[in-house]
């Protein structure tokens, strides 16, 4: 298998966004993942979200680690630079890239092995630094490329395809992200595009560390009875707490909702997150109650999805470091080199 280009021909009536791009302009090469893989639905949702937001494709940098999920950046946004890096190390590469040029949009794609096992440290530290990024974990609870081993997000007691029972506690990355200070935390399901697309849009417009845990069934190794990441299991245990609409400057606000059922969050870039509550007692503005709610529902076997938490005034790593607005990669000798006179002064101080 090498690579399959996807022809760019499209139906003349395909709608264009504010930049004149159709959805096809946000696509990549043809996926080489298994037919029915949840990851392909996520790629489609990313394409849809970027198209709807009218993002310039070349202003996105897409980075990934290693694994099935980390192969997917080839399958969307082929006008973007991509980086298939090292297993579990996408967060550090993305952090460095972000430091070099704060003006691009950073999209990190990872999997549960990549982020919860080998890369748990980097995942954690990128969250606590508040790197301005959208970090998507395509979570299927299993190692696909190496054929069916449990990953660290697999629930305790769930069964592998070969019948083995997982005896280790599963890691909930969304809970970790909440604890570690991510300022936008969501969970979704690859089979629920209607929920996922707005969550990705919200993350892309969020000016800080945005994390989305997307449960994404593995049709080859984790879609059987006894698995808690199968299509059937997730459909039956998906408890969506809210529905998100992302309203950018390009779109007029038309929908109307009964009072009290909507929470509005204004973000720095002028976008508005409009959250329709599906669960009356869910509060996405409180980190602590979000953690408590998600974990108590998990104890009852339910997977809570939706926008779990958002901090409207979120800052990012550049704000913490106090770096200039201009991308660091644009600076030259004039800004960076103090010259021989400063050096002479320095020499004099060392005699």
């Amino acid at each position, binding site marked *: *298998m*090498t*690579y399959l280009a996807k022809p760019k021909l499209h139906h003349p009536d395909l709608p264009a966004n504010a930049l004149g791009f159709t959805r096809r302009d946000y696509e990549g*090469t043809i996926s080489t993942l298994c037919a029915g893989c949840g990851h392909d639905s996520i790629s489609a949702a990313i394409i849809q979200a970027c198209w709807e937001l009218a993002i*310039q*494709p*070349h202003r996105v*940098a897409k*980075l990934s680690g290693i694994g099935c999920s980390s192969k997917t950046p*080839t399958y969307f946004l*082929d*006008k*973007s*630079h*991509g*980086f*298939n*890096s*090292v297993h579990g*190390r996408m*967060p*550090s*590469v*993305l*952090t*460095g*890239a*972000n*430091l*070099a*040029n704060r003006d*691009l949009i950073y999209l990190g794609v990872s999997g549960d092995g990549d982020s919860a096992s080998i890369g748990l*440290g*980097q995942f*954690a*530290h990128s969250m606590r*630094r508040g790197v301005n990024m959208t970090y998507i974990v395509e979570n299927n609870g299993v190692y696909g490329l190496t054929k069916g081993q449990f990953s660290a997000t697999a629930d305790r007691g769930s069964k592998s395809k070969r019948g083995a029972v997982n005896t280790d506690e599963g890691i909930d990355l969304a809970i970790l992200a909440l604890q570690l200070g991510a300022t936008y935390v969501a969970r979704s399901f690859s089979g629920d595009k209607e929920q996922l697309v707005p969550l990705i849009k919200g993350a892309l417009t969020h000016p800080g560390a945005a994390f989305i845990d997307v449960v994404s069934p593995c049709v080859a190794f984790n879609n059987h009875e006894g698995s808690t990441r199968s299509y059937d299991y997730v459909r039956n245990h998906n408890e969506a707490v809210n529905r998100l609409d992302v309203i950018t400057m390009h779109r007029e606000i038309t929908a109307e909702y009964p009072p009290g059922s909507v929470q509005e969050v204004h973000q720095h870039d002028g976008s508005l997150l409009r959250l329709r509550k599906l669960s009356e007692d869910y509060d996405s503005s409180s980190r602590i109650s979000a953690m408590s709610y998600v974990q108590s529902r998990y104890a009852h076997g339910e997977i809570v999805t939706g926008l779990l938490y958002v901090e409207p005034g979120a800052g990012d*790593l*550049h704000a913490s*470091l*106090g*770096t*200039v*607005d201009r991308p*660091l*990669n644009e*600076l*030259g*000798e004039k*800004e*960076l*080199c*103090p*010259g*021989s006179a400063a*050096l002479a002064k*320095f*020499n004099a101080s*060392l*005699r």
Partner: protein
Amino acid sequence: MVTKRIERVNDFVVKFANVNGSGSASANTLFAKAIMRMGVPVSPRNIFPSNIQGLPTWYEVRVSERGWLGRRGGADLMVAMNPQTWEKDVVEIEPGGYLFYDSTKPLPADKFRGDVTVLGMPLTAICNATYSDARQRQLFKNIIYVGALTALLDVDVAEVERLIGEQYKGKEKLLEPNLKALHLGRDYALEHLPCPLGITVRRTDKVGDRIFIEGNNAVALGALYGGATVCAWYPITPSSSVAEAFAKHCSKLRVDPATSRLNVAIVQAEDELASIGMVIGAAWNGARAFTCTSGPGVSLMTEFIGLAYFAEIPAVIVNVQRAGPSTGMPTRTQQADILSCAYASHGDTKHVLLFPEDAKEAFQLTADALDLADRLQTPVFVMTDLDIGMNERLCDPLEWDDSRTYDRGKVLSREDLEAGHRFGRYLDVDDDGITYRTYPGTHPKRGSFFTRGTSRDRYARYTEEGSAYVDNMQRLVRKFETAKLYVPEPVLKDSPRTAHYGVIYYGSTACAMDEALAELEAEGIPIDALRVRAFPFQDSVIEFVTAHDHVFVVEQNRDGQLRTLLVNEGAIDPARASSVVHYDGTPITARFIRRAIEERLSAFNVRPMRRTAAAGE
């Protein structure tokens, strides 16, 4: 027989044996600097434990009017302030030397040596009588012995006073008590001890305009001048002070005048894996980025370093080398990461290494490394060590050519892409193995590519074809050949006489080697010397080996790692080069080098091999 006491002017070694955490370091530095201010070259060295408080630490000051800056070995005056190491310290004194100690508690006669002059001073008693505060008693004890040393060695006390004045500028409350302690010690010594000793300091003008600087500080400044805008690092001795100095310099020299914000991003990462990951991410995105670390950090970084080699991403890695893993010996110096850096990572990899000899060259080569990494699109290691990095050393002033511009290498701009330049990320257009790259976000339609390790073709498209892999690997070999044109040339020091033997050395060995070569020359043993400054080796390095009957490769590791690299990469006959190695964690000395070479040469002379071969012809 009575040993004659040592009598020398501006040529001796003073060694301070202290307990770390006792505040001795700043007092000892004061002593060394005062001598430097008198125009006499000094080279101090810290020998310290992996510890903050309570373990033995030494500070060795070599005073050498001739300007030898290497470690000499032995001590002419031992300032023995640590009872834990007393026995060992006393043994180390040269016959006829001097022993200065705290005589508050009487010691039995068998604790002393008959062939050294013993100088007792009741430091603790003086401190206890003068100060009531326990911390003050400890801190001022150090200044008091410095005061005594000014009298014993004829050091100009006014220079010490001036230095104290500079140190406590703006903190006048601390100035007076320090000066008082200094004179307390000096006056006691003048009254009770045989001042001056046989070893003394005499003002001269041999320092010139040289500066006194730690290599790590110079590296930090080199990175700043070289245009680094991203520094990601993880604390590890002996490299941490590179990043700390970089941050300090940036807080003054990288402030945007309009906004007071910083033209740099410095991140203390969670580990070395993350620090190199950030460097690679930043460099991929067009910023100049570096990290500083030591051997174990490089071990952790190797997976990423391999990726950067194959994906062809610039990265500057400063390796302040130390001895081995874990803790303890790591606060000692070595040159033991040559092979692990040259071949770091999985798959077929080779990396560019630079070997600065001192702080000044470390400044230059760090700035150069940022150019080289961009030019060659590959990781570049700046290989210093603890001896260079963490000791203040006299070196020529740092220099910068204001007409110098940064070499950003082959990067296609939006205009280039607009003009229709054919872009293949791994397409060797110029036939030098170096291909063109684009930064993310450059052009809406052209120049984007997907970065991967090895599975791609010349246009960065995914492929697992063996032929594409081989094609790429062969180009990387060409690129490494091209690197020889850019890395610094070796420095040749030809003996004035015809020499049949040569010596190859690098890095911090240089200062001891200069002295050893002069001594050998004086003994009538001519040796040609070549200081290697980079890997890949230029042809001139290999030619140097073949031009001599035999070459000694002098290095500070057990296995003769540079020699291995020479034999391996230069395809030279292993019999032509032998190792002279010093690896006990202390800096190599001229004495060691001279003796080792003398021994080898005498062994060669008794070997009949050459004569037999000649006779058989």
